[in-house]
């Protein structure tokens, strides 16, 4: 049984239109239909956070949303946060402070961290650990991820102050 429907989703500022079955998980829409392969599939069971994207201002695990639910929404992935030529302060901080080793969890980590810093620009270590609890890393032991987010927060706050 195929019941393809017409969907419109804004991804990283660009409107995408396509036909898909409503049961398609958003992570597959992004990766296989739209070739946006930053969000990763780690566990596919809502636990690991490697597929985290931002949807209408919320951090969401894209493996736990049907494409039909995302119809009409605004989705941001790591590709929309920064690229090789214009690294986001978080991306730069993860690079400088060894916030990644294998890198598999990193797109989800950084996407989640952008939202965390938006909600709380000056998080304590405890708040970072609590706010990042939906993202699992099997390499770093988290210490350098916390350091990276703290460093990015400091840099972003300094930049904001300089601009004012």
């Amino acid at each position: 049984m195929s019941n393809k429907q017409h969907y419109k989703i804004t991804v990283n500022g660009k409107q995408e239109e396509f036909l898909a079955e409503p049961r398609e998980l958003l992570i597959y829409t992004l990766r296989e239909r739209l070739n946006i392969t930053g969000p990763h599939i780690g566990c596919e069971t809502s636990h690991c956070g490697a597929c985290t994207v931002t949807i209408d201002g919320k951090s969401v695990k894209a493996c736990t949303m049907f494409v039909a639910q995302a119809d009409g929404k605004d989705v941001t992935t790591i590709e929309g946060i920064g690229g090789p030529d214009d690294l986001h302060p978080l991306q730069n901080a993860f690079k400088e402070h060894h916030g990644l080793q294998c890198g598999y969890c990193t797109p989800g980590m950084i996407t989640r961290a952008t939202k965390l810093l938006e909600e709380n620009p000056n998080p304590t270590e405890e708040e970072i650990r609590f706010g990042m609890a939906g993202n699992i890393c099997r390499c770093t032991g988290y210490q350098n991820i916390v350091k990276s987010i703290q460093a990015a927060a400091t840099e972003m706050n300094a930049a904001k102050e300089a601009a004012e």
Partner: protein
Amino acid sequence: MIPAAFEYYRPKDMASVLSILEEHGDDARVMAGGHSLIPMMKLRMADVPHLIDLQDVGGMSAIDIAGDSIRIGALVTQADIIDNAELASVAPILKEAALQIADPQVRYMGTVGGNVANGDPGNDMPGLMQCLNAVFTVVGAEGERDIPARDFYEAAYMTAREDEEVLTHVTIPLPKGGYAYEKQKRKIGDYATAAAAVQIVKNSGACASVSIAMTNLSDTPIYSDAAGAALVGTSVDAAALDAAVAAMLGDIDPSEDNRGPVAFKNHVAGVILRHAIERAWSRA
């Protein structure tokens, strides 16, 4: 991890939701945030030929505090509960519990309505709502009806809500006194090994009234009248705590699973309840 195919509906009003439910009976189910239902559909443990997404149905996303009660719409998320300062000041136990549910991503999507209506014994809100003596309002073709949280849960995933009814909101009498939601879990994202909700009123150094409910220690949440009765009139001293824990253990019926054998769960339930009562009492 691909669910069976389904027809997807995103109606804009409750009348349309009810007519789809009427037409398809138990082949149709409503979904709010989907963070209980979608994993079950991916595992093909839930088969939902007609899926009704409630996200565009109005009137179910507000938290209203008026007079002596709080009304929480079914689509209010755990993140909304945590972020609402007024709610945190009049009923801080809700925020304390919501912060212990799953992880940030899940809390942005997971709703109060889904958490209480699903009937999963692992969910935290059902026990909490029993502790707070909340009332659930469901709507069906015949109109609305109110069901006390303490009468709502029949067995795992079996509740007093009929298949063609939708839970629209919960109403909570303003809680009084000290509070605590205490939860033991193996790791972030896991359900409770044991959890306890306690709301306690102190009067001249003695316990005037108390309400105690336990989570994930039976196939339904357990409101323990007997545990509360063991505390009322006492100064919540060591003997009263022992009596309350013993009474609670008589009401729960845990089963062995990957969180441990029955004896361990009884042990943890006792520890958790003791912590919860002590913390609630210190805040009373």
